[in-house]
C-alpha cells in the first residue's frame, strides 16, 4: 500500500512574545511556543488515521498545517508525492490542494450565517468556476438531508444537521483526503454517533482518506485504522487501532485509557489523570511526560526517549519493551 499522506519531521513554532515596544522597554527576550515538534507519520490511501491528545497537544496545529492553513516552521507535508511547502508548480500545487478538505469542530461557526446552504455547499466548486447545477441538492441527499434544505439559512438547522452540511461542503470538490478536526466534539452524544456513521459510510463508499483529530477515545475506537497519540507536540505512541487498544505501551496512553469513560464501567473506580499538560513555552527537560508519569525515574528527567519502532508499533518511552 502506498502512503497517500507523508508527514516528515513537522514542527511549528509560534511567536508569543509581547509587543515589540514592551519587549524593548521591559528587556524581555522573545518567547516562543513550540506547538508541534518533529512529528512524522504516514497515512495510506483509504485509511483513517486518528490523532489523539489533550487540548494543547498540537493536534489541531498539525491538521491546519496539513491542509495549508498554517505554514510549517520545519519539516514537510507531502500529499500524493507533492510537497506542499516546496512545490513550485502552481498548477500542481492547486490540484493537490483541491484534493484536501476539512471539517471543523464548531458547526455553528463554520457556516457563514448570511449564506444560503446551497451557496455554502457549492462554494468549493464555484470558486474554481466549476458546474454547480444540482450539486448542493445531490450532496444534501447524500448526507441525509432534504434537497429542499438548499434554500435555507444555517440558523434553521440543528448542530448535527449543520455538521452534515459541513460534510456536504467538504465533499463538493470531490476531495480524496478530509481532515476532520474534532468533528463531533460540539455535538450531543446521540447525534455524534449519527454523524460518525455517516462519515464512516462516506469514507467506504467514496474511498476517502481521513485524518481524524480528536480527544475522544470512544470516537477513535469507532473509526480509526491507525492511531497516533500526541503529547506536548510530540508523537509518543503510534500503532494500529486494535493493537493500541489491546496493549498500550506508553504510560500516557495508558493513563488516557484509564480515564476514559466506558459503557461497561458503571461502578468502576476511575483513575483520574494525574496533573495537567505542562506549559509548552517551558516544556520539562527530558521526557516531557515525566512530571505526570507513574514510572518516571531519574533517567527520564535527563534524556528524552526517541520514538522507536517495535513491529508496527512506535513508542517514545524508555521503558517500552519490544
Amino acid at each position, binding site marked *: 500500500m502506498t502512503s497517500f499522506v507523508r508527514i516528515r519531521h513537522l514542527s511549528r513554532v509560534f511567536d508569543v512574545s509581547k509587543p515589540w515596544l514592551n519587549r524593548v522597554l521591559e528587556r524581555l527576550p522573545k518567547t516562543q511556543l513550540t506547538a508541534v515538534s518533529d512529528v512524522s507519520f504516514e497515512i495510506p490511501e483509504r485509511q483513517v488515521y486518528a490523532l489523539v491528545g489533550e487540548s494543547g497537544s498540537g493536534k489541531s496545529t498539525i491538521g491546519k498545517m496539513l*491542509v*495549508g*492553513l498554517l505554514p510549517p516552521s520545519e519539516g514537510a507535508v507531502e500529499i500524493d508525492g507533492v510537497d506542499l511547502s516546496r512545490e513550485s508548480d502552481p498548477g500542481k500545487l*492547486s490540484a493537490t*490542494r*483541491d484534493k*484536501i*478538505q*476539512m471539517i*471543523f*469542530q*464548531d458547526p455553528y*461557526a*463554520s*457556516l*457563514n*450565517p*448570511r*449564506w*444560503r446552504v446551497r451557496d455554502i455547499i457549492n*462554494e*468549493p466548486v464555484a*470558486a*474554481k468556476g466549476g458546474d454547480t447545477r444540482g450539486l448542493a441538492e445531490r450532496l444534501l441527499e447524500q448526507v441525509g438531508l432534504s434537497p429542499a434544505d438548499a*434554500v*435555507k*439559512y444555517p440558523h434553521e438547522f440543528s448542530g448535527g444537521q449543520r455538521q452534515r452540511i459541513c460534510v456536504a*461542503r467538504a465533499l463538493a*470538490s470531490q476531495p480524496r483526503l478530509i481532515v476532520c478536526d474534532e468533528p463531533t466534539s460540539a455535538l450531543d452524544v446521540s447525534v455524534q454517533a449519527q454523524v460518525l456513521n455517516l462519515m464512516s459510510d462516506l469514507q467506504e463508499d467514496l474511498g476517502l482518506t481521513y485524518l481524524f483529530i480528536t480527544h475522544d477515545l470512544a470516537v477513535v475506537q469507532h473509526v480509526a485504522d491507525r492511531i497516533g497519540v500526541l503529547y506536548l507536540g510530540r508523537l509518543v505512541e503510534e500503532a494500529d487501532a486494535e493493537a493500541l487498544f489491546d496493549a498500550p505501551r506508553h504510560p500516557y496512553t495508558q493513563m488516557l485509557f484509564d480515564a476514559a469513560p466506558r459503557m461497561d464501567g458503571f461502578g468502576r473506580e476511575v483513575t483520574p489523570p494525574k496533573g495537567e499538560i505542562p506549559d509548552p513555552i517551558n516544556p520539562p527537560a527530558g521526557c516531557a511526560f515525566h512530571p505526570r508519569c507513574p514510572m518516571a525515574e531519574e533517567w527520564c528527567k535527563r534524556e528524552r526517549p526517541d520514538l522507536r519502532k517495535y513491529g508496527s508499533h512506535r513508542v517514545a518511552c524508555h521503558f517500552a519493551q519490544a
Partner: protein
Amino acid sequence: MVDQQNSPVARPGALRRFWDSDMGWSFRHSPVAVISLLVVAILALGAIFAPWIAPYDPFDPASLNLMNGFTPPMQPNAFTGEIFWLGTDDQGRDVFSTILFGLRISLFVGFSAVVLAMVLGITLGLLAGYLGGWVDTIIMRLADVQLTFPAILVAMLIFGIAKGVIPVEYRDQMAIWVLILAIGLSDWVQFARVVRGATLVEKNKEYVAAARLIGRSGPAIMLRHILPNVLSPVLVIATISLALAIIAEATLSFLGIGAPPTQPSLGTLIRIGQGFLFSGEWWILLFPAGTLLALALSVNLLGDWLRDALNPKLR
C-alpha cells in the same frame, strides 16, 4: 439577530417579513421610533418633492417681489396682500419654500457624506482587521490621530484646502461636493473602528478558514464572507452619523463656509435668519432652525432605537 437584507426571496414580501420579525415588533412597540420615522419620512418627502410642493420658487429672481419682504407668517402682506404660511425673508422669499429647498441640500449633503464615510470606513476597517500587521497599524494610527481633532475642525481644514485648490469661478458650483468630501472624510474613523473590531472577531471563525482552504482570495473573503456579517453595527452608526453629518453641514454653512447663498441649506438659512432675530423678524430664523432640530432629533432617535433593537443584550 434579525436579518432584513438577506432573507429568502421566495417567501412573503420584504416589508411583510420585516413587520412580522422581532425588529418589526420592536418598532411597533416603540412610539418614539414610529414618530421619528414619520417625521423623517415627511421631511424627506418634502425635500424630494420640493419643486412640486413648494408654492414659490425661492431661487427665481424674476418671481420675487421685494415688496413682499418681511411678511410675518399667516398675515397678509401690507402692500400686496399675499399670505405666506411661514412668512418671508428680507427679499420677499417664501420661508416655507426655502426650507423645503434647504432640506433638499441638507439631506443630500448628509446622505452623501455618510455614504462616503461608510465606504471609506468599511474598506479601511476591513483591510485593517483582515490583513493586520503594518496595514492595521498605519490605518488605525491615522484614525487615532484624526480622532484627536474635533470632526468639525477636520472638515473645515479639508474645506479650506479644497477651496484653495479649486479656481474661483467653480467655487460655488463645487461647494456642495466639497462639503460632502469634507464631512465624509472627517467621519470615516467610527466606521473603520467598528468594522475592524467586528472583522477581527469574524476572521477567526471557521467559515473564513473554510473559505481560505477552498482557495478564495483575500478580497473575495473580505467582501463575500466577512462584510455581510459586520454590517449590522454599521447600520446603527450610519444612522447616528447621518444626524451628525446634517448638523456638521449646518454648522459649516452657519459659519459661512458651507453651502453658498445661491444654494442655501438649512444652516445657511439659519445664518441669514439670525441677523434679523433682534429686529423682530423671528420667523426667518425660527422655522429653519425648528426644521433642522426636528430632522436631527428624529434621525438620532431612530438610530438609538436601531441600536437597541439590534443589541440582543438589551432585549
